[in-house]
């Protein structure tokens, strides 16, 4: 995508030795309707994520439920095939640069040498193009710990079978040897031989999560995707599990992708953080910087909503309005703008924002709309059942923040209204400081997060 073509940009996470680097990964689920099950749209669960996961570190992925963080985790672990995009495995910094350069070229611009390099890289590192052997190796190397240890363990299997299964599948061990290996794994996660012949229901939540972790570590992976590993646990147990994870990382040199909605946990665990909103990454950067000096209003809001035990200074708390928009038809421009306390004209107002707002706050008026004729996302002709409603609608639009984004005044003509907004391209991530990325257009202009306009009307 254009972001990658940008001269100064390499990937989020920079040109480091990466266990995995994703380029423009998309997962779109078709929405089918009617008798014939025709595809009427796509749920854009993950919509263009480029991210590299540096080896030996912990990358935190945070966001609200439904923002696509779990889907992204599933793409990485190979449980969901991406609709679009590339996953490069085990890329060295040099290869990273090479891929950057090559992916910005069109096939015509490539010389023979370039094409050979690309072919070599693809065969060695690109998931999907590399040999079956290598793909299997990646699968072994990348393991997952799921959120709900209650449903991710087979209730009819013994711990020996659950933890031993990966070993058996990959012909690593069998018989007594298998038992010994399982015991070794259990001891690693703080359980023991006495637990070998028990069923999952005989364990507490924390112990079950330990079994899950033992299973993930059975094949000595380098990379573990932790999908909300502690959200079902109590704080005291959560602390035990987090300590265990850190210890294992030190011992085995693991790379973690830590998916969570708990900012306290991610702040404690992660080296760098990617904040997701509606399928896209809103902000990326080193953990401490992102928390102390957020460059995206969404990060700031998440931080402010997180209750803390320490007395925070009497700073103003930012708040999100409204609800998460429909991921089938996400807002144009910056995806946060309909809910953002900082939203201004340039943030990408479009026809849908006005219609959604009308439906929500003036339902009676919304009912009077008889026809909506769009020429684009930004320009529309709305017909009402009477002229009165049209005038009322025009006045309403005049009071919205979207009003500033109109490229000409709303034209009322009898019972119909013509409206057109300034077209805005979709917000893209931009490197603001060394290693800090934000997709907020206003922040990008100012170079820092704007102040909250306190006398804002909305």
């Amino acid at each position, binding site marked *: 995508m254009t972001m990658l073509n940008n001269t100064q940009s390499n990937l989020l996470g920079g040109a480091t030795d990466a266990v995995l680097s994703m380029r423009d990964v998309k997962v779109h689920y078709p929405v089918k309707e009617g008798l014939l099950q025709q595809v009427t749209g796509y749920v854009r669960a993950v919509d263009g994520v480029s991210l590299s996961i540096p080896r030996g570190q912990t990358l935190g992925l945070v966001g*609200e*439920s439904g923002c696509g963080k779990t889907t992204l985790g599933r793409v990485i672990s190979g449980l969901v095939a991406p609709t679009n995009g590339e996953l490069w495995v085990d890329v060295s910094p040099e290869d990273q640069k090479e891929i950057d350069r090559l992916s910005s070229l069109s096939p015509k611009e490539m010389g023979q040498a370039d094409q050979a390099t690309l072919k070599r890289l693809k065969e060695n590192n690109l998931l999907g193009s590399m040999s079956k052997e290598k793909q299997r190796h990646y699968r072994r190397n990348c393991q997952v710990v799921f959120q709900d240890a209650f449903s991710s363990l087979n209730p009819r299997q013994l711990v020996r079978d659950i933890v031993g299964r990966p070993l058996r599948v990959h012909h690593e061990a069998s018989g007594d040897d298998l038992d010994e290996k399982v015991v070794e794994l259990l001891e690693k996660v703080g359980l023991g031989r006495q637990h070998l012949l028990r069923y999952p229901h005989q364990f*507490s*939540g*924390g*112990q079950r999560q330990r079994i899950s972790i033992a299973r993930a570590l059975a094949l000595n992976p380098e990379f573990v995707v932790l999908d909300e590993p502690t959200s079902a646990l*109590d*704080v*005291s*147990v*959560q*602390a*035990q599990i*987090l*300590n265990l994870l*850190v*210890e294992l990382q*030190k011992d085995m040199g693991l790379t973690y992708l830590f998916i969570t*909605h*708990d*900012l*306290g*946990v991610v*702040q*404690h*665990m992660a080296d760098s953080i990617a904040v997701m909103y509606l399928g896209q990454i809103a902000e990326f950067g080193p953990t*401490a910087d992102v*928390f102390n000096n957020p460059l995206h209003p969404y990060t700031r*809001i*998440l931080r*402010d*909503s*997180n*209750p*803390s*035990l*320490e007395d925070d200074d009497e700073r103003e708390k930012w*708040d*999100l309005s409204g*609800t*998460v928009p429909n991921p089938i038809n996400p807002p144009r421009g910056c995806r946060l703008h309909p809910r953002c306390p900082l939203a201004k004209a340039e943030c990408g107002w479009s026809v849908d924002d006005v219609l959604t707002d009308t*439906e*929500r*706050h003036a*339902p009676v008026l919304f009912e009077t709309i008889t026809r909506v004729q769009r020429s684009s996302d930004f320009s529309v002709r709305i017909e009402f059942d009477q002229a009165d409603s049209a005038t009322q609608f025009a006045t309403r639009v005049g009071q919205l923040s979207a009003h500033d984004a109109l490229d000409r005044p709303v034209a009322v003509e009898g019972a119909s209204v013509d409206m057109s907004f300034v077209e805005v391209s979709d917000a893209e991530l931009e490197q603001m400081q060394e290693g800090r990325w934000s997709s907020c257009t206003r922040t990008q202009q100012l170079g820092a997060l704007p102040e909250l306009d306190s006398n804002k009307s909305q």
Partner: protein
Amino acid sequence: MSDTTLLRVEDLSVHFRSSKGVAHAVDHVSFDIKPHETLALVGETGCGKSVTARSILRLVPEPPGEYASGEVFLRNANDSETDILSSSPKEVRAIRGDRISMIFQDPGKALNPGLTIGRQLAEVFGEHRLSMLFENAEMADSKPSRLAQRVAQQRANAFQKIVFDVTSRGASKRLQKAIDESVMDALADTGIPNPRKIMQSYPHELSGGMKQRVMIAQALACDPDLLIADEPTTALDVTIQARILELIHQMQQRRGMAILYITHDLSLVREFADRVAVMYAGRIVEMGPSADVLASPQHPYTQGLLDAIPRAATPRGELAAIPGTVPQLIDPPAQCHFASRCEFASAACRSVIPVPLTTGPGRTVACHRFDSAESLGVPADFMPVAATVKGKPSR
């Protein structure tokens, strides 16, 4: 003190009989709630906090549950007290939803998936505010008592019944309008945009935050004196959580009800509660003003809970986890339940059940570190290292 309490729980014990033995889910718990205050009940999964809350409304199923001891007194307007646990089921039903109401943890499970939001909320008014509805529908003289009786019989579709019962078409329309208006007011009060549309939707059509708002509207429809909020935000995102808590707080200020707030998250307590009671394995181990308790916890368990919360300043991998696991509640031995996980535990802790000791204004703690060997009747070398505390703790 007692003349201003709204709710008094005295020595409450709830047991569950199972094939393995008797589980002491709630074990001699006493606390009180004053009007307009927020008391937080904090503890880990399985510590008995939800059972305590449900006992207040007598919602624990019997069997397998059993109220082994104790009383729950609710103060009435005329200063008399009703013991909820010994009242008749009819009296308890009059209290539920009217004087004490409850918000449950998972709004997706607590709302009836087969009824529209409007119908569900209408039930509350049908149960407790029939005369008000008839008045609003200008039907005050049309024998509400007979209708009310019918409604009681046909609770599930209360309103359909009334509407069809009222012979005149105009009257039934007026009544339906009165119902709709009451429901809409209740919904609008919780900041739900477009209540008319929400009323006609089913629970599955709403988001989690919206469902929780509906629950709050339902709980507050009859202006209760006490709202029991059982982990109202556990199933929600942080951004929504902040707004739901803010909403509950606003409603409290506007309506002046007391709140019993049940949570496992200590960081919410600081912002939200006046007083906090920490529960462990069925017993309240520490109670006091929330700022004091969080600033200087006295019970080792409270200290452990606070230390386990990840903070920016804690070095990675060095969270102070409480070692061990929560003990079994089935036929517990007569000792401090926390003894097996406590760094201070001594012989006395393993042989005598600690009782709550007053250690300051409004503060109690159930820990032998604050007690003396004489009052426990054990040799002095059985005692754990004494805690330093201002003033003399008293029983």
